């Protein structure tokens, strides 16, 4: 972009006084010129017009506004990427609306065509804006601050005095003084022109470039990412391959064949809770103690994972998400065979005290006489038994102080042979029959864990015999069709394993944006001119004026400071009589006569001359 002196696009009010200041007021920033004119004929003309429109500040504003409005629906309508179950519920409840939303991409707003269009246009506009602005800025750096306008009195801040010193000496001194204060200054005619605060423009450009960097980083991250979940019970492990994940999703460019080889085992899980006071039950620590290995040779390392401290391995991160209890049970069938033994992860129903539910499916069970009799158990688990609430027991503390498992049982066909994937936390009871007791009520029992029944009952003073323990921890099914024994408790933890390239880039972009933004908003770009000429009476008249962007009240103060610094080299003439009446023809131009350094210097004490310029 050329450094022409057209100031119509100057985005600050300084442009207005600048319009009669000629070049002096031009390009105090590098905002693009607003071009509202109609295009000249021809496709090229139209194309240029369109491009100008797209890269204008007005369109940038419009697109920004659209971006914020466009982001709203995604926060109010359920999103597939966040909660697919909710989306399905929504669609089931609002059939027509759901269809309309589906067509509009409302269930995946942030990857929808229209949302992408808004931000892509915005970023094209941004690039179209940054490139010419950068050139323009380089031009300004190469050039010199514009020469002093003819009438300095018209500038927003102005001061003058008379001195005995020679004009040449004053200008010389002014140049030195300004350069010492890191102004870019040069002599032009009977004045020195100086400018400072270029970093503001640098900051602004850095900020806008950083926005692009962040967008690129975000795009890289979502195209090449992978993310999966895994639930692991104490003692079990995970190794990084597709089949090991409970659930997995990845960006379109992620290659599942090249997943980095690593794995880990969860040795134990520690959870502690506040035991007393108003904070009773508040989690204090969650810690998964793991051993992990990388590569094929796999030397093991031990580590503790906590919620905010992920494991960083081979470009993957492993996060501890949540945890719960996995009762260990043994199931025997009608023949007395052990048909199931293991820890079954239960899902917490109450996130605070961990009343949890789960099921045990035993497809391989048979009756006494060898008939197929699949068994299913539905169970509720409480770590600390707190009593019963409308029939079902509840927990009163999250730690396993008094664990109880309440079981009821089903038999028949579990429906696992159909080949359809089944929810491991639910029984499909369509072809199952529930065991009932003699009275026709549901057959169920509360079990104590075999490994701690003695401890748990010790408060009653009695030690339990092995038979008694067996009785407390086992439920025998009617007709000798089998039994289930509550052996003990393990803890499970769920992990999220993610791979997202571009995080470093995103952080770099964010930091650069922040620094650029601060520079752009806190640094003032301003110009100062000093003129020294011999007056009619042979005494030198020094005039100083400043021009900044409109928002600053600091400019007059700075000008005053500069004047004070110049005075030693241009001492005030002792007989400072009436001033040359430079303003006479300007009439009402300079109306506010205020000294910013002395806010109370006002005739009317009730007049806060500083105004709200706080």
């Amino acid at each position: 972009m050329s450094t022409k002196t057209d100031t119509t696009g100057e985005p600050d009010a300084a442009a207005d006084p600048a319009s009669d200041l000629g070049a002096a007021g031009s390009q105090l920033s590098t905002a693009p010129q607003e071009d509202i004119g109609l295009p000249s004929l021809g496709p090229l003309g139209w194309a240029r017009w369109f491009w100008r429109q797209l890269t204008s500040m007005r369109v940038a504003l419009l697109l920004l506004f659209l971006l914020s409005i466009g982001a709203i629906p995604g926060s109010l309508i359920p999103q597939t990427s966040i909660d697919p179950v909710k989306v399905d519920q929504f669609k089931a409840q609002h059939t027509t609306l759901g269809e309309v939303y589906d067509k509009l991409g409302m269930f995946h707003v942030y990857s929808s065509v229209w949302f992408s269009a808004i931000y892509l246009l915005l970023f094209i506009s941004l690039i179209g804006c940054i490139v010419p602005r950068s050139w323009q800025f380089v031009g300004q750096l190469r050039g010199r601050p514009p020469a002093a306008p003819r009438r300095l009195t018209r500038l927003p801040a102005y001061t003058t005095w008379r001195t005995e010193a020679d004009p040449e000496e004053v200008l010389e001194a002014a140049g030195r003084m300004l350069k010492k204060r890191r102004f870019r200054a040069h002599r032009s005619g009977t004045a020195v022109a100086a400018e400072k605060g270029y970093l503001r423009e640098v900051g602004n450009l850095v900020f806008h470039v950083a926005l692009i960097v962040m967008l690129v980083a975000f795009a890289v991250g979502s195209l090449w990412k992978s993310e999966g979940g895994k639930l692991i019970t104490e003692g079990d492990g995970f190794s990084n391959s597709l089949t090991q994940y409970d659930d997995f999703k990845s960006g379109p460019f992620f290659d599942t064949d090249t997943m980095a080889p690593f794995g880990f085992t969860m040795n134990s899980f520690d959870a502690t809770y506040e035991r007393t006071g108003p904070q009773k039950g508040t989690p204090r620590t969650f810690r998964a103690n793991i051993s992990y290995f990388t590569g094929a040779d796999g030397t093991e390392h031990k580590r503790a994972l906590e919620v905010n401290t992920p494991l960083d391995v081979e470009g993957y991160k492993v996060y501890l998400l949540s945890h719960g209890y996995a009762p260990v049970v043994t199931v025997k069938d009608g023949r007395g065979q052990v048909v199931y033994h293991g820890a079954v992860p239960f899902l917490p129903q109450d996130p605070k005290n961990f009343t949890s539910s789960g099921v045990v499916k035993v497809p391989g069970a048979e009756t006494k006489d060898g008939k197929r009799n699949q068994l299913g158990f539905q169970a509720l688990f409480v770590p600390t038994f707190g009593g019963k609430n409308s029939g079902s027991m509840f927990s009163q503390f999250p730690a396993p102080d008094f664990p109880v498992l309440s079981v009821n049982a089903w038999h028949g066909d579990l429906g696992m042979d159909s080949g359809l994937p089944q929810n491991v936390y639910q029984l499909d009871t369509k072809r199952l029959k529930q065991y009932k007791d003699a009275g026709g009520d549901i057959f169920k029992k509360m079990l104590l864990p075999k490994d701690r029944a003695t401890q748990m009952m010790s408060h009653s003073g009695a030690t339990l015999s092995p038979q008694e323990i067996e009785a407390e921890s086992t439920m025998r099914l009617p007709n000798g069709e089998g039994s289930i024994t509550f052996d003990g408790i393990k803890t499970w933890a769920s992990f999220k394993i993610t791979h997202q390239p571009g995080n470093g880039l995103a952080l770099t972009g964010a930091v650069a944006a922040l620094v650029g933004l601060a520079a752009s908003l806190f640094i003032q770009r301003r110009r100062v001119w000093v003129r020294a000429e011999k007056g009619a009476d042979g005494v030198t008249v020094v005039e100083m004026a400043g021009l900044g962007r409109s928002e600053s009240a600091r400019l007059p103060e700075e000008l005053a400071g500069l004047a004070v610094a110049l005075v030693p080299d241009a001492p005030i003439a002792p007989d400072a009589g009436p001033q040359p009446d430079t303003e006479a023809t300007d009439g009402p131009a300079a109306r506010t006569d205020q000294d910013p350094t002395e806010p109370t210097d006002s005739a009317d004490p009730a007049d806060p001359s500083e105004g709200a310029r706080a």
Partner: protein
Amino acid sequence: MNLAAAANETLAHNSNLLVYSAMAVYTLAFVAHMAEWVFGSRSRVGRTAAALTTEAKAPTTVSVQVAQKGGTAVLERPKVITKAVAGARDVPDGPGAHGGTEKGDLYGRIAISLTVLAWALHVGGVITRALSVQRAPWGNMYEFSTTFGAVAVTLYLALLLFKKNVRWIGLPLVTTVLLDLGLAVSVLYTASDQLVPALHSYWLWIHVSCAILSGAVLYMGAVATLLFLFRDRHEAKLADPQGKQPGAFATSVLERLPSAASLDKFAYRVNATVFPLWTFTIIAGAIWAEAAWGRYWGWDPKEVWSFITWVAYACYLHARATAGWKGRKAAWLGLIAFACYLFNYYGVNIFVTGLHSYAGV
């Protein structure tokens, strides 16, 4: 352990007492502010009209202040002539709520003293609350609201302390803080809250404290913007003597505010100053989300609304930089942006469920 628990409960109880006392004193401050406005109305008004309609005839004299000390001329700070930006109305600021009357001023000072007292109680309430839960008091909406109010009043008093002309914000501020605390103790009250370990992260504390501070500053900007809209309309009416003139009540109130230009400038400064902090708030939140959930940005409702608020403020700043959008249009954008901030706080926490909702209402 039980002793400590009892101590905590006493602290929590004291905290509530302090907050209630602060509300009582804020109410007194509110009454004093009202008195200030009522007695201030007896002052002469019409300075704005005068400034707008009379031509400044006297040629401005340009002078240099010279202090004679021991015979040598010493230049003190030279008198710098400032000129209003062309096109803007050149109107002096109003005298403030007290209207330049002594009685009004007295009530105004009483109001500020009461505000200081209420603030001390309020801050005491926030600190005892923090001690009772043994963590920063930003764990749920009750704590967030009380802290937010305390920070807003602190800012106001700090600006007063630095001799900034912000007395005009006194009445709106006290009113809002009363509303804020009223909501906090009635609707949002939470006795003591659970914090899941995901919240044990210093990035979270940085994030939340910055969000509170940003909000308090943005609030000031929003009040100034709102008043700007009124005052600007008022000045526009006065500038056009043929058109409809403002009523007596509007004149009495609006005349006492700073000029539209000053209010606008104040609002811009405040918003522009805090925008980088708000940006940092979001970045800190993203860093924390990365550490806690394995993604720095996941379009969770809270994240979406922080983003919307941020873009809305970017809009506002852009609007100020675009010639045709200065003034009223930019002001409306500023208000919309603040509304987004408010919705992100109340709306998202209460109506929308997301990962952040476990912070507890």
